[in-house]
């Protein structure tokens, strides 16, 4: 009796066990095959992956200058190479900027490939996530094409080499041949414009994509393309969604500067990706553009001897991004902002021979950049003068955002603004001629060895 009971009991257990492969298929908290709409959406919220961008453009731009020998030995290899516009920048190593953008593009492609068939989301949510991914992808391509290709030139854009246009997440059968500059810009525009109807006008957080971010990027793209009429139109669209300016006056009387997420001027929060480069020393040329009353000078910059990161140095350093030391993201802001929209619009107006309208916009900005007692409106009578004043204001306002490098590239195409830059480092002098090949970053040798179809830039 006992014997048979044991046998039956055992037999039953074996049978139960046999049908039990489901036993091991247990849900893991927080870790699963990518399938839920909310998972796709959350991928875009990883600030560390999605909102960090380039590091080399601000180093190459003429806003930066090393004058104190103390900093010289502290500058790491890639930064040193970029600063001196060397032929080879990355050696045998990876190009961190390139990797960062293509990682973002991979994530966006995962989303555009899969979110529409994902589970657990409404059609509306899926379309919104799809649209946001396209904004992030466009933002990455806009930076890439301006770093690794010649500046957009309507005459040659169809043949100038842009960057590989990867539009789906796969490892095989992806064409890595560099698309033309024109095609890359076309893709940027398509992504942004097609995404627009599904985006919220304003985001919950400025790290997220929105209409104001998309219009900000469209403004930037069209300015770089020289399509001033379109750029102005898009700037207006962006400003319609956000035109708040941050008055800097309280911050010279002890008020704490707002963390990045609370800064009203940000249209799309993207930051400089460098972690090793910390001494944002201002060039003497940039310093000379400021008057001591300028609140940007007083709030965003400090004497090098008072720089928050050791060692301190002679000269003056930019600290705008360090006013809140540990924040949602470190690094200077690089994404589109309300002041950038105003300045772009002003530039377009000046170029359209509307100097007074341009100057009015600048003064609107400058009222927030000086104490009322010290504010003096700018004046310009001719369109040329207005343009010159606008560009100067642009340089002051957007210092250390990295856009200066792209402006240098852009303005060199106009002989009246073409400029030769020289700098001295460790006893050697380096010169960068207007429209030099050195304005176009090389592609890391390693990547070309892996995929020889990627063509190198002449240096």
């Amino acid at each position, binding site marked *: 009796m006992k014997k048979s009971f044991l046998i039956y009991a055992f037999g039953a257990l074996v049978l139960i066990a046999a049908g*039990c*492969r489901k036993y091991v298929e247990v849900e893991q908290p*927080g870790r699963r095959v*990518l399938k839920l709409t909310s998972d796709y959406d959350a991928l875009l919220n990883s600030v560390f992956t999605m909102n960090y961008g380039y590091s080399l453009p601000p180093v190459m731009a003429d806003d930066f200058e090393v004058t104190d*020998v103390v900093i010289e030995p502290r500058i790491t290899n890639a930064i040193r190479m970029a600063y001196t516009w060397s032929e080879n920048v990355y050696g045998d190593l990876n190009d961190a900027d390139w990797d960062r953008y293509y990682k973002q593009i991979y994530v966006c492609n995962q989303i555009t490939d899969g979110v529409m068939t994902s589970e657990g989301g409404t059609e509306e949510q899926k379309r919104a996530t799809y649209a946001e991914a396209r904004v992030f992808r466009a933002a990455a391509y806009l930076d890439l094409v301006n770093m690794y290709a010649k500046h957009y030139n309507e005459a040659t854009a169809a043949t100038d080499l842009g960057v590989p246009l990867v539009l789906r997440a796969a490892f095989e059968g992806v064409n890595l041949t560099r698309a033309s500059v024109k095609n890359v810009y076309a893709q940027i525009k398509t992504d942004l414009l097609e995404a627009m109807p599904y985006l919220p006008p304003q985001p919950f957080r400025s790290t997220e994509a929105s209409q104001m971010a998309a219009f900000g990027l469209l403004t930037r793209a069209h300015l770089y393309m020289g399509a001033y009429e379109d750029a102005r139109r898009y700037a207006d669209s962006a400003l319609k969604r956000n035109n708040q300016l941050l008055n800097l006056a309280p911050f010279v009387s002890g008020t704490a500067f707002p*963390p990045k997420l609370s800064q009203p001027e940000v249209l799309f929060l993207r930051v400089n990706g460098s972690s090793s480069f910390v001494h944002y020393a201002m060039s003497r040329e940039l310093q000379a553009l400021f008057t001591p009353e300028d609140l940007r000078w007083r709030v965003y910059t400090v004497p090098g001897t008072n720089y928050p990161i050791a060692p301190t140095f002679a000269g003056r350093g930019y600290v705008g991004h360090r006013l809140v030391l540990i924040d949602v993201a470190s690094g200077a802001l690089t994404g589109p902002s309300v002041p950038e929209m105003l300045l772009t619009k002003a530039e377009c107006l000046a170029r359209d021979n509307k100097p007074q309208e341009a100057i009015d916009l600048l003064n609107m900005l400058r009222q927030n950049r000086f104490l009322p007692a010290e504010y003096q409106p700018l004046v310009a009578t001719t369109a040329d003068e207005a343009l010159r004043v606008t560009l100067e204001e642009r340089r002051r306002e957007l210092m250390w955002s990295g856009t200066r490098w792209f402006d240098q590239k852009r303005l060199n195409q106009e002989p009246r603004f073409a400029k030769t830059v020289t700098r001295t480092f460790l006893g050697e002098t380096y010169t960068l001629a207007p429209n030099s090949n050195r304005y176009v970053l090389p592609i890391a040798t390693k990547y070309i060895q892996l995929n020889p179809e990627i063509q190198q830039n002449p240096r």
Partner: protein
Amino acid sequence: MSFQRVTHKVTVGNAPVTVTVNMRVSQLQLEGVTVSTGYQKIDKQQITGSATVITAKDIQQSPALNIMERLEGMVPGVVFDVRNNAIQMRTQNSYYGDAKERMPLVVIDGFPAIDNYLTTNPTTGLGRTDKATNNSVINNINPNDIESISFLKDAAAAAIWGSRAANGVIVIETKRGKVGAPSVSLSTAVSISEPADLSNLNVMSTKDYIEFEQELFDKNFFTDPASHWRTPDVSRAQQIMFDAKNGKITTAQRDQLLAELGTRNNRKQLNDVMLQNAVTQQYGLSVSGGSGNSDYYVSGNYAKDRPVFRSNGTESYFANVRVNSRFLQNRLNLSTYINQTYSKSQVNMAAMNSLQPGQFGLRPYEDINDPKYLMFTKAVTDSFTRLGYFPWSYNAIDELHQSKTTYRKNSSRINVALTGHITDWFSLNVDGTYQRTGAMVEELTKENAYATKQLVNEGTSREANGRLTYGVPKGAILKLSNVVSQDYTLRFGFNFNKQFGEHSVHVLGGNEFREVKSEGYTQAHYGYDLQTSSGIVVNPTTPYKTYLSTPTVAFTKTLGYADAIINRPITRYLSYYGVANYDFKKRYFVSGSVRFDDYTELGLERRQRAKPFWSVGTRWDLTKENFMSSLLPVINNAALRFTVGTAGKVPVGGNPFSLYNASAVDQYTTLPNGTISTPGNPDLRWETSRTFNTGLDLRMLQQRLVVAFDIYQRRSTGILVNMPMNPTLGWSTIAYNTGEMKSNGFEVAVSGEIIRATDWTWSGMFNIAYTNTKVTDNRFGTQAVNGPTYVGPLVGYPVDRLFAYRWAGLDERGQSQIYNAKGEKISSFAPKPLTIDDIKYVGRATPPTTGGLMQTLRYKKLSLTARVAYYLGHKMFYDPVGAPQLPSGSQLSGYLSTAKAMADRWRQPGDEANTNVLGISNINFNSINWFTTSDINVIDADNIRLQQVSLSYALGSLGKRAFVKNMNLGVTAANVGLIWKKNKVGVDPQYVFTSSYSSLRPSPNYNFSMSVTF
């Protein structure tokens, strides 16, 4: 326990009567040693596979503190890396994976252990702090409770434990009670060792160090602290140099002051103040016995470990209860085992930090009593103190008492095994085990600890009226982390064991469910008050003003920690297993095993997730054959063994679908966020390997000489290889099953009694193992290389290949040059893309030949044992300069490299003819990297070490009536030292100089032990 029915013919008067007696075979009567596979125990004389057994007696013969130390050199083919707490059994069968992934499976009393280590270092892997070792070690199982440890090395072992046993299996059996009167045994051991001798550090003299600073000074590496209030303080020597430069003192005064400084040396002071003798105490008590239907074994153990670094220590407690009970005329057997372990360890880094380069390290001439000013000069620090800030200085002696990290680990393990004997040849069993481990880390930094002062001072701003505002609450900081792991296994099995005439058949099988899960979280408390045990609630994302703020400009900061994470991983396993053994006349043995494993792995289809593994083996006892009979007087026993089997590993690290990994909600954006942890790759399959093992067992000369020989070959296919991918596609590597490799090796173990006399015995053990691996397929085109340490597996080379640059001397700037394949010199200032031909193969990184030797000499009750371990045939990089401490871009402050070789550095053009040691101007990353990984710094790592010498006195049995039945006394010296090394640079290959104390060879350790049985 097995039962044997013995039939005796007894004559009662004139009538023969047959009496059948059920006899229980006593363990003492079992001849030889048994191997435990975790599922069954097999006589060593009947096993088909390759196994080594270490018995309780062997373990006791080697009374080191650490169980790994006791085993080092004792098991052929198994390398115990005591320093890194890793075990490698035979060869690796994959290209990648760290030592942890290559660990064999550890099985305790039939169930896998919750963590696969024999020992744990309390400071690693337990939570938020991952700090270096403090030398304390906790044995995860009490050495005194071990009955035997079986090392199962071939496929026969792997197949029965399935996918987790690809690296071999270690099966530990704990002691059981014996029927009889209670036996009480008491053991105690104390061991003492001095701190390692600081004068053995291969460092330059104080004078050379000052001269080194002088060179850096002359080359403008340092900033004058007088230049600005925020310039960090400099060393005493540098201050003297600045004073001379600024005209405060004359050159003659400078030279005199520096010369005086050069005569100082703080080694003795550091030794006296920061170090202490390491002392370990162990006390154990066990009671065992049994009667009639039950037996028991109860033991308790306490160990206290005080390492050489002051303010550190570990305590551990063990308690075990094992009860076996038999019911229903011995038809039902219930075995219960309960184990409880508690350990507590305290870590303080001050002593260790004072002895190694870095900001807290002491320069050779610095006095440990003097405060160090790390942020500012003394004058600036003092003015901060006057404003009400905490004194912004560091003192290592104070720090010993200001911070401590406490690790507490509490683990319980309960095993219950119920066996029902339905007939005497068939039984069913239900076994279960439940383990629970709670690990808690408590990191306390008191109010006056440097780290706290730093954080609080930094967050303190001064208002216009002079009042201080504290952004970070004043008080201590307490960080807690807590992880609870739970593991249960439930097993249903049957056991068939029957003799059919001369055939005997033993079959067992069953299935198994297992779940492993854990839950962990962290907490931080600021402004913590030790008296009331309460902290102040802070918002980690609210900015607060820093000390740099002025009444007009605000610099702010947030604490920015993320505590909201609760980790809850869970994994389940489902297995079916079967083992069959058959023998004919105890002469021909055949064995087979099969196992099917399935477990939780995301993104894999059922088909790809589980795979059956099998093994078959045979054994032929030659001595039972007639043709061997003439040899019997010499060869008592000879047997040939053969096994073949498969093993495999599920492709972790690669998935056909992209895996989403949710991260903690971003503290700033408050948005849920996640990343893709593994990209989708539909072509993945299992890594599999097939192993052949052939062995020969010999017993000769009245069992006085025992030889075991094993030779094996393994072929692994479908090895996951991280293929370099163009980052343009989003990833820089993707795993593919493209690798293949072969490995082979042999092991010989010889043990014997050389002299066997009444008063004298001389017995010894010797073993040697050789391994070799070869990559046979790897499609990864290793054309471009980023240096010798980045070379992937290459076809034709061993998996543990070591490559080096070809050194071409220093250039006229004192920096490295290398030769490429064409023999051209390449400068570190103009590096060129290199290919595999530009670097050269220098040898294997792990020892191909390893083994040990143990000799015991006994005279009456006194015996002397010596144990030697050796590692031969490998190469290693030796960094003579302490490259990480070289003054490069980021390392200009604090304690610089004090490596002796740095005294011979390049100083001026022309020196390159006489030295290979880099100069410090123009130093760059390539130059340092080339120097440390070039062929001039490759050394032979062969070494032979005397692990232990011990002397013991066994009082032996004092008679049954005596109160004390047995007594042993012993003295052991461990870490006795190096007997031989091949390299000529004076480097102990196991303790290569890395400028710090932790690289010093430990001093000999003296252990006094006593055990008494009542």
